[in-house]
């Protein structure tokens, strides 16, 4: 069993029998009702509950977001942006004019040559979107997808690139997209954090800086649901502490805090009491989230929960990563159903400097089916209209093969920030369309260039925000997700 499966069995058992770890849900619910622990007005008071829901600048179509972040820079040329010309010119040098002023991470300019793609691209859906044969499942969803082939960024190293894509700046210390949205809108979930992060396989090079709240209060940071041990850090009570003891503890804490509150008269004490109560509710709600007994077998199979990887690659996270990734996609839907505002799914690494065909195949086999299942599942439950799904990475890959010194053969591509692909679906996005074009080599954008700030501006718009007005004052300046740029791409909107 993978750690995840072990964990599932264990948490389900504890949930059903209402012992060990958290308090049983029913018991807790009745306890809260009896004690009226958290009054409605307290819940809606931002001073007491920083996640209290509040409206945006105008009504937005999107209510929740699932951001699938595939770290490393998946090759758009082998997935989304067919370039037959590359196959024609395979092995030839690029014109001097294109590469003259370009910096590469690893490519040696003098000897680099164009690399074709062995992928077969075919048209799909009513819209006739072209996708590669590595994405057979996503191909069945194209009419819901807005594919952007004209993204560009100025960062061409991983960590700065990830920071730009996730926080709007290549520098450390800025709040991530999810933090901005939860800061702006609060969360509808009373029992779970407003911003949840799921990871599968090995970590990203950005680590927690990709879901940090930066200079925003910690309440708006992404909360990692872990894939080993407890789902939320410190969720379970210490071993040996019975349910009865925990109830008595809660009651004593509340009484003693209230007693002191009578003397200090500080509203902050009410806020502390509220935080403890939320914590207790989370202790019950988080295990419930992982109890899949009410999911049908068909659903679980649709997500590919029972697949196992063939062990042909260890880069993408090793054994068990197919299962973990599928689980994360299913969990994302369940989190959204429970009102969580922003769910991030991270997977590393798609950084294919060499052995691209095989490694990309391995990763696509992992990700394609669960992602398509997520889109379909959201749709049939009527959640897709209000749930924005985004598929992102920090940049794309070069049309040139990578000839890094020391490589015995050319079998991969280097980082390419000037033109790459991403897609969006649901949440007010107009599906079944392709935005933007690149030149015949896929080197530069020739139509509808979309910068990271533009993407962020559009995402905020979908949630009902004017990106220039969602600001936070820090070190004497009003900061925003889009820094000093960004424009809403109206073509994307339904």
């Amino acid at each position: 069993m993978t750690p995840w499966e072990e964990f599932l069995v264990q948490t389900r058992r504890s949930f059903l029998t209402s012992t060990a770890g958290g308090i049983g849900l029913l018991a807790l619910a009745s306890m809260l009702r009896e004690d009226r622990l958290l009054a409605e007005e307290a819940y809606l008071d931002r001073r007491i509950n920083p996640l209290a829901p509040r409206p945006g600048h105008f009504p937005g179509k999107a209510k929740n977001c699932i951001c699938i972040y595939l770290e490393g820079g998946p090759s758009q040329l082998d997935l989304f942006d067919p370039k037959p010309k590359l196959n024609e010119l395979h092995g030839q040098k690029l014109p001097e004019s294109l590469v003259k002023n370009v910096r590469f991470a690893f490519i040696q300019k003098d000897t680099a040559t164009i690399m074709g793609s062995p992928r077969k691209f075919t048209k799909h859906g009513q819209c006739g979107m072209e996708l590669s044969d590595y994405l057979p499942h996503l191909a069945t969803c194209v009419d819901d997808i807005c594919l952007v082939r004209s993204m560009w960024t100025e960062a061409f190293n991983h960590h700065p690139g990830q920071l730009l894509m996730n926080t709007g700046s290549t520098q450390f210390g800025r709040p991530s997209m999810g933090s901005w949205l939860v800061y702006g809108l609060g969360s509808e979930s009373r029992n779970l954090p407003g911003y949840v992060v799921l990871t599968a396989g090995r970590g990203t090079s950005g680590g927690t800086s990709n879901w940090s709240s930066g200079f925003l209060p910690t309440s708006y940071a992404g909360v990692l649901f872990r894939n080993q041990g407890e789902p939320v850090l410190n969720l379970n009570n210490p071993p040996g502490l019975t349910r009865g003891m925990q109830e008595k503890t809660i009651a004593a804490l509340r009484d003693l805090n209230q007693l002191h509150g009578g003397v200090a008269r500080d509203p902050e004490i009410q806020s502390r009491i509220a935080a403890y109560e939320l914590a207790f509710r989370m202790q019950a709600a988080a295990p419930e989230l992982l109890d899949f007994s009410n999911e049908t077998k068909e659903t679980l199979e649709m997500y590919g929960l029972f697949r196992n990887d063939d062990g042909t690659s260890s880069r993408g996270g090793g054994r068990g990563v197919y299962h973990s990734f599928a689980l994360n996609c299913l969990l994302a839907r369940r989190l959204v159903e429970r009102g969580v505002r922003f769910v991030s799914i991270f997977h590393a690494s798609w950084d294919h400097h060499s052995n691209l065909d095989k490694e990309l195949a391995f990763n696509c086999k992992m990700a394609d089916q669960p992602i398509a299942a997520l889109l379909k599942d959201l749709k049939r439950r009527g959640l897709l209209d209000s749930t924005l799904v985004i598929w992102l990475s920090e940049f794309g890959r070069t049309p040139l093969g990578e000839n890094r010194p020391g490589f015995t053969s050319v079998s991969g591509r280097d980082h390419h920030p000037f033109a790459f692909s991403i897609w969006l679906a649901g949440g007010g996005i107009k599906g079944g369309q392709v935005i933007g074009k690149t030149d015949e080599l896929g080197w530069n954008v020739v139509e509808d260039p979309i910068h990271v700030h533009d993407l962020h501006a559009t995402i905020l718009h979908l949630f009902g925000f004017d990106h220039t007005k969602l600001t936070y004052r820090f070190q004497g300046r009003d900061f925003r997700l889009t820094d000093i740029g960004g424009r809403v791409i109206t073509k994307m909107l339904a």
Partner: protein
Amino acid sequence: MRMLVLSWLWGLGLLLAWASAQSPKEAPSRAREASAIQFERDIQPIFAKHCLSCHGPRKAKGGLRLDHPDLAFKGGNSGPVIVPGDSRKSRLIRVVDGSDPDLKMPEGGKPLSQEEIAKLRAWIDQGAHWPKPAAGPTALRSDHWAYQPIRRPAIPAVKNTAWVRNPIDAFVLARLEQEGIAPSPEADRLTLLRRVSLDLTGLPPTLEEIEAFLRDSSSEAYERAVDRLLNSPHYGERWARHWLDLARYADSDGYEKDLGRPWAWRWRNWVIDALNQDKPFDQFVIEQLAGDLLPNASIEQKVATGFHRNTLTNREGGVDQEQFRVEAVVDRVNTTFAVFFGTTMNCCQCHDHKYDPFTQREFYQIFAFFNNDQEVDIPAPMPGEEEALRPKLAAHERQRQELLQALEKRRQELRQQLGNWEAQLTDAARSKLPANVQAVLQTPPASRTEAQTQVLLDHLAASDATLVALNKKLQAHDRNKPTVTHAQTLRLGQLRKTHVLIRGDFLRPGAEVQPGTPAVLHPFQPKHNPPNRLDLAEWIVDPANPLTPRVTVNWIWQRYFGRGIVPTVNDFGTQGEKPSHPELLDWLASEFIRQGWSLKKLHRLIVTSATYRQSSAYRPELEQRDPYNALLARQNRLRLEAEVIRDNALAVSGLLVRRIGGPSVRPPQPPGISELTYAGSARWVESTGPDRYRRGLYIWFQRTSPYPTLVLFDAPDSNVCCMKRERSNTPLQSLTLLNDVVFVECAQAFGKQWAERPGELRDRLRLAFRTALTREPTASELSRLETLWHEFVAEAERDPKASEVLLGQYRPANVPLPQAVAWVGVARVLLNLDEFITRE
């Protein structure tokens, strides 16, 4: 009539200018003959009308000022704009006549008339004669309060003189009396003891300290406690942590692989020592900014420069090293101005400051001070370390010699086996050998040179398991050579030219600049040529500096009241908030300098004031009038910082290891945290023994996966200077205090202490409460705890076997199991109280 003549003249000028453009060689001389342009009459009015509002003494956009010839001919950030004698090469003309595709001037204003443009052209072509004014350029001026000199205000008179303990109180009370608000009564003695202990050392008073304080009935008891705390080595730890926030201290690189910095702590040690010795603040600053440049700099003074080694580093494959070198220098400028000037210089990396009187050019003039630095790690042994190292080095060398001998012995054996090997070589095997080996084998053994034999030996050696193993062992041995502690420092390297970077882009250098300081601030009188970091440091702690003393006393004040006299501690500019008590701020700043920049004296002054000693009880009647308690009619309740919360739990439970200084430690953290980083490069090897129980400021700070408790309780991310921490309140904090292994262990140890104590239950509960919260419990609090204790006993009696686990490794001797469990339950509640994590 005059107008007519003038316009006729200008018509002529226009013609002449055109002519000059046609034949540049002769035209200027002719033009001078025909109509000499007079600067004051013809050009100055044009500048005044169109240019000076942006390119004058109040603002110098793009680094350009057209109000004085010295500056005007120097040009802007991208270089000169006037080329005397050649209007076609002058950028000034191109931006006003529309021939520059990127820039049109005046920006957003009415364009110049053809006539005005012609005048400018003619003036330049005639040699751009600009009579030298008697005076130099006027300095950039600002009326903003923060840039005015610090004056020592008179201490105001108050009615309630009995309340005033020192001048701070007179300033605060004068304002309160003005508003008709009475100050709050003094907090009770034990609350006061706890408050000042937490503020000065970050640790709660021990039971013994509480008893001693209660026994001291003299009027000086509190002051005596303050002196004891200021002399405690924990004072240095507490205030070092504040300084670390400003200095963005961390134990790792930041970007991508986020490699560890094994010597970062050495600078932290320096800070702790400097504060404990009460090194005067001016010296404290000079050594950190330029310790290496002091005459005969000591190792410790060099160690101090580690302040600016806390910048981020990117070692990702394929990055442009120059880009990240520039980023580090930019951060040094920004941090210097944030910490000492409360100024957001960041804006000026790309453009002139939008609100404050700082220009992009000035940014790069400061940049120039840091642009020549090299990052070097120098040996910086701790006291006694070298002596202790000597025998270790000797042992290491002995082992090394043994390895070398073994290697040599094996080589000799191979040499003897050479003939045998060659004899047994089949043709097939021979053909598979490397070409150079085959070549040697062509020569008969007897006539081979030593070099040829060596080729064969090398070949054999490469495939000899014994030799390979020995070589590996030797390499590992050399890697593990014992070494003294090192320190990360800055050192002056080769001088680089510094340019304004257009839009902050390191690939777009503009005009060259020299090291210098912003014009709006006090005069800069460097002693070196070119001016260096030491000049900069001395300029910063010049008593004439209007900002550094104010900014410093303000952030220190903030630590005591939760809010600065200037609430925007990091922004003293025009966008920041105004001081609530401007005279108090100036008095404190001047007093700080007068007391020889002594931090301890400043702390003592603040904590012995009546203002500081007030009760923190909330006053609902003032909520509308003074919602942020800016007037200080009471103290503020402050949630403790992340590190201090953990320190307190460890201290109360008796687990805290009070050793001062040393390398960073890795206490237990839940699994899966460091795995979030790239390729697990930040592997968390848990510390063993006492290092698990060290204070929070010693916890290894891994930038891409910081210790979770620190993050949850708002410790800064340590990427940029942090002058003010958030104080959030989240359910994840509750879960941490309830269930995190460290806090559970504290509850177990704390519970064991009281379970083993003899005495009545209520007495023990009372003392446990006092240990955790310093004060006496009220009767209802005590009863509530007693109820809880009995409830836990009952719960534990139901299933003693299961609840035994709750004791962990802290099973008290000779105590019935249910009672032992009940004490853990009580301890856990005490450690989770709002009051426990609050400074009242």
